[in-house]
């Protein structure tokens, strides 16, 4: 009979509490729920292999890893192409106004391209905050002081707007 180790129970509790949020962070970056879940599962697998679920830093680690893993995936050219093909297929099967859907998808693609061009830290700050993490949680995930988060966010927002504008000016 298999025995359940305390760490397995702790991992299940951590997974139950954090999976949706970790997947949400990845989805915020990728704008693709299927790919976001892939990333979230890989993040949990990596975590489980290397760390104790009862570690104090577990949540912060997961949040940071989700943001970075998704941003790295966003930067992968081949994956980006695949994602765009998948999104186009998804778009063709949706019943909403096709013209509107095309615009929404184009906006998402443009913003994600801008996000991929940003430096990792500002991009992660934006994504974590937009995923509903508090300033304290963003600070823990990125290893900065809570007081720095506001400034980092402002700069990151400005950088994203510039990148989006740059992307459309060509």
């Amino acid at each position, binding site marked *: 009979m298999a025995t359940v180790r305390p760490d397995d129970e702790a991992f*299940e509790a951590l*997974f*139950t509490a954090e*999976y*949706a949020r970790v*997947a*949400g962070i990845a*989805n*915020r970056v990728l*704008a*693709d*729920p299927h790919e*976001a*879940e892939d*990333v979230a*599962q*890989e993040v*949990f*697998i*990596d975590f*489980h*292999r*290397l*760390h104790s679920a009862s570690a*104090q*830093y577990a949540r*912060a*680690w997961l949040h*940071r890893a989700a943001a*970075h*893993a998704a941003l*790295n*995936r966003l930067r*992968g050219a*081949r*994956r980006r192409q695949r994602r765009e093909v998948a999104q186009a297929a998804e778009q063709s099967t949706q019943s909403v106004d096709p013209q509107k859907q095309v615009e929404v998808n184009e*906006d*998402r693609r443009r*913003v994600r391209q801008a*996000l991929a061009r940003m430096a*990792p830290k500002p991009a992660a700050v*934006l*994504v974590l905050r*937009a995923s509903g993490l*508090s*300033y*304290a949680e963003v600070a*823990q*995930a*990125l*290893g*900065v002081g809570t007081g720095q*988060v*506001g400034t980092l*966010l*402002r700069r990151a*927002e400005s950088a*994203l*707007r510039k990148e*989006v504008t740059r992307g459309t000016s060509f």
Partner: protein
Amino acid sequence: MVDDPDAHDSADARHFESCPECQARYKAVAGDASHVATLLAAPELKVDLASAFDRVRSAPAAQPRFGLRLPVLQPGRRPMVLAFAATLAAVALLATALASGDNIFSPKTITPVPVTVADLQSISQLSAYGDLTWTTRPNLQIAANEAEAQSISGLKPPKVAKLPTGVSSTVTYAAMPKAVAVFTFSKAKAAAAAEQAGKPLPALPAGMDGAKLTVTIGPAVAEIYGNLSQPSSSSDLTQANLPQLIVATSSAPVATSTQVSVKQLEDYILTVPGISPQLAAAIKAIGDPSTTLPVPVPIEFGTATRVQVQGVDGVALGDNTGVGSGVIWIKNGLVYGVVGTIKQSDAIDIANHLT
């Protein structure tokens, strides 16, 4: 502070109530934040927790149960990294083997010893001569940040004053509390190992059966520069990145032994078949084995030179081609290492300016 109530205190709030300038800035910033939130809108995500958990649980078990998972290697770099891994293994074995009976092995300085792949294979056979048990298992962890790395290891991560051009400033912290291993030599195991090898190895010296070597390694802390992200699909393994630079510090390893003297162990190592004359000479040349940490240098893959680092003797490995180099030194009871895909001159410069 504008969009998180927990991020400002009551004094901030009072000031804000009475400051039109702050209110105007708040409005602008809130407008920006709202615009960015719109930009970052994402399609709805519905998760199936149970099936996601099943997929995660059914993932294959980790290969290394402890320690950093090495980034996947470009095929062309494998020999060098294998040599590096073998070097680390040999450091542990040599340090263990050179521990003395009466004196505690507690290195205060460092010396390079040239080893061949055959040497490493020969030395590694020694590990079959007994039983290794961990009284405190190594638990190398990736830390979320510098403070956490310090809290895990009790050591302050060394600060790099200036990164060489081309090295990413993305840093990952790794830390390990102290680990303690006990190796018990066994006459029966040695005989069995020799028989299995088909090439009888020398018998254990008298008194060595049952001798215990207790080795303490760490605590240790490392800063790993570079993008360490793993590829997300197994078909794209070659897209993974190697660390560009690793800066690490660890308490110097300490070993104590019972029943056998350092001379016995040294003589014994030199009788193991396959040990090269260069290694034998280098081991014999170590003046005080109880205070010198030998750094095996794979002669097929690396060069070693003695250098001065932060006023003490160190060993510089590799060359100036930028393919890979490092420097190792011991100061105030701590072993420091700077290793990376950088020039040797850069490694020495980083080492001299670590704070």
